[in-house]
């Protein structure tokens, strides 16, 4: 029987396929962080004064803070002076105007990652902004989107071209005083994506960003800001990979979403940062702050995440449900293997009347991994008739991994209704044998069972990216017949 369990672990333990390093000439800062670094960074990006002030305010606040220790993860202290805070492909300095001007090797990298930037321009369908190390290298479909009035560009471009919008919304969901990593990001973020959907516009295509950390000893601090005005709709996906390196790399991103009256933002993540090797050496520390504000009435923000990578994941995409009748959703699949640690979940803060939130979390643990769900559902006094439904399911593979659930529920409004369901299960020998007896290989059997377990979350992924999730999980998605 143990032979079966072993095969199972081998199957789950597929090799990291995105671990190549790209040989591109880069401009970078020497490691170290002080006010000078921030001034230099802001200068290189030709930022207006308000941005520099904002960064410096964040940095000064950060100096007063300590790294949080409450999460169910463990890692040695990070030396923030050993990190380089800026790394960019050299050609970028001259500012490529089109894909043709990009370093062919860079394009090759994205091809290896399965992001055919050049092809996508022709095929139409998904607009991609790709962030390589610290800077945004290509945004496709800019023109087509502009016709619809949609702004989709790198954060750096947004600061140059739409400074008023940036100034109006930046830091209004995740302020520069928020948490240790978000504050650090506010001080040193180098690029990211910016999306603005004006009143009444339904974004004509899925928007997508791919993040990649390439250079050694570099931290990646990108920032995403998405604004959907009244009655606007947008669906956005981010994907992430990094090379295999023995040392740990820090990724501390911030994502802010703002939905005004009746606006809808769907944010999907397929995260496949390098998780470290089988002994737990190397890998990305993914310490990310993602938060959406449903400011308007009947607005809706939906987070869908498929987390397969990173040595440590620390992230709680949340929703502040401020507008009456606003809706927050969180659908998550988190897979941890070997020595990966994940402490992830969501925060749903109900402020407005008749607000509702749904949380579906699926944790899959294998090897020596520790997988924790941590969620906060908070119903404030004014949130009459607020509702929350939470479902946390854990699937264990093998007997050395762990699954933990930390639900926090705070209710200050008597008419609120909060439900929490949790389950823990294992892939049983009986299930595997049954599938094999029907002709399926062990690999297909595991894939089918895991897919079944994750079904409620996968069905929330945009169609275009369902395939992506399949490739990353190394399992095949359940097709539909009839």
């Amino acid at each position, binding site marked *: 029987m143990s032979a079966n369990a072993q095969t199972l672990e081998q199957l789950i333990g597929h090799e990291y396929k995105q671990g190549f390093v790209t040989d591109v000439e880069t401009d970078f800062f020497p490691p170290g962080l002080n006010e000078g670094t921030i001034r230099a960074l802001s200068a290189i990006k030709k930022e207006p004064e308000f941005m520099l002030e904002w960064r410096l305010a964040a940095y000064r606040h950060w100096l007063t803070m300590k790294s949080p220790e409450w999460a169910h993860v463990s890692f040695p202290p990070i030396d923030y002076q050993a990190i380089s805070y800026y790394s960019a492909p050299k050609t970028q300095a001259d500012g490529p105007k089109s894909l043709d001007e990009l370093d062919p090797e860079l394009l090759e990298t994205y091809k290896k990652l399965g992001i055919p930037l050049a092809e996508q321009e022709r095929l139409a369908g998904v607009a991609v902004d790709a962030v390589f190390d610290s800077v945004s290298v290509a945004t496709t479909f800019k023109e087509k989107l502009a016709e619809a009035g949609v702004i989709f560009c790198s954060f750096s471009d947004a600061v140059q071209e739409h400074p008023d919008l940036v100034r109006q919304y930046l830091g209004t969901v995740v302020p520069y005083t928020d948490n240790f990593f978000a504050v650090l990001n506010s001080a040193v973020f180098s690029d990211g994506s910016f999306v603005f959907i004006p009143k009444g516009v339904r974004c004509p295509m899925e928007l997508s960003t791919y993040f990649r950390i390439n250079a050694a000893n570099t931290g990646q601090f990108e920032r995403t800001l998405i604004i959907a005005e009244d009655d606007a709709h947008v669906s956005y996906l981010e994907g992430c990979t990094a090379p295999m390196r023995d040392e740990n790399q820090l990724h501390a991103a911030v994502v802010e979403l703002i939905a005004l009256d009746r606006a809808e933002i769907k944010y999907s993540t397929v995260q496949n940062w390098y998780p470290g090797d089988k002994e737990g050496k190397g890998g990305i520390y993914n310490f990310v702050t993602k938060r959406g504000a449903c400011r308007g009435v009947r607005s809706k923000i939906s987070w869908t995440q498929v987390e397969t990578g990173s040595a440590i994941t620390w992230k709680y995409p949340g929703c502040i449900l401020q507008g009456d009748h606003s809706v927050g959703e969180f659908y998550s699949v988190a897979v941890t293997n070997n020595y990966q640690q994940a402490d992830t979940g969501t925060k749903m803060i109900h402020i407005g009347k008749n607000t509702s939130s749904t949380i579906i979390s699926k944790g899959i643990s294998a090897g020596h991994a520790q997988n924790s769900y941590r969620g906060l559902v908070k119903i404030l006094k004014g949130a009459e008739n607020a509702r929350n439904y939470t479902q946390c399911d854990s699937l264990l593979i093998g007997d050395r991994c762990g699954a933990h659930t930390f639900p926090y529920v705070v209710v200050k409004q008597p008419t609120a209704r909060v439900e929490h369901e949790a389950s823990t299960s294992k892939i049983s020998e009986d*299930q595997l044998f049954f599938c094999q*007896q*029907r*002709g399926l290989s062990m690999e297909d059997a595991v894939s089918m069972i895991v*897919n079944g377990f994750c*079904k409620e979350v996968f069905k929330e992924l945009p169609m275009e990216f369902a395939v992506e999730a399949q490739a990353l999980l190394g399992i095949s998605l359940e097709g539909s017949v*009839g």
Partner: protein
Amino acid sequence: MLRIENLHVSVEGKPILKGIDLNVKAGEVHAIMGPNGSGKSTLAHVLAGRPGYEVTAGRVWYQGKDLLAMAPEERAREGLFLAFQYPVEIPGVSNIYLLKAALNAIRKHHGLNELDAMDFLATVKDKTRLLDMDEQFLYRAVNEGFSGGEKKRNEILQMAVLEPKLAILDETDSGLDIDALKIVAQGINALRSEKRAFILVTHYQRLLNYIKPDRVHVLAHGSIAKSGDAGLALELEKQGYGWVEQLADAGA
């Protein structure tokens, strides 16, 4: 089709089967009967290749090949089907998806193309009617929330779709009421053909009222105590298993 020679099987060092000989030809229906603990289910599982059973002696030939050397999924793809006594639940995986994945795995093994979605659906719907099952069954998660009878019918549905060469039914009749038993028997009878063989593992004679076996074997203490034609099952019904157990003891 299937030839079992002097099969000895142990579980965790404890001998369960102590020398089984059995010869099943295409087109035949064999019933394996016996009291609880006589090794009936062990025999079914060993033939299907379930892990955890140790074959200590003997050979099994299936269509001229060494069955025991084949992986469980390979046996399945070569047409060996086991209807489980306790079918498992697979949450989130729909019946129709499982059926399609299984059928295509088998077809691929035989160098055939994957079945077209429309053809597949038509075939499957035909089979559900044969078993008097609601089509909605196809879209429910495999056995999740199914009643005992529904689970057993679902096993027969899978058999009907996969069209095995050798079907082993492990106590498919247990836990069925008389109406469900008739439907299941009807489904099995509809699949009887000259090219297909059945091994019915059962505790009771009543299934054999609806499916007439060519041969009946009575298992006691890990070996076949007595073999005969359909009449043997009726005799057992009258005399009980004590009778064959005595025979087995006398033989040993």
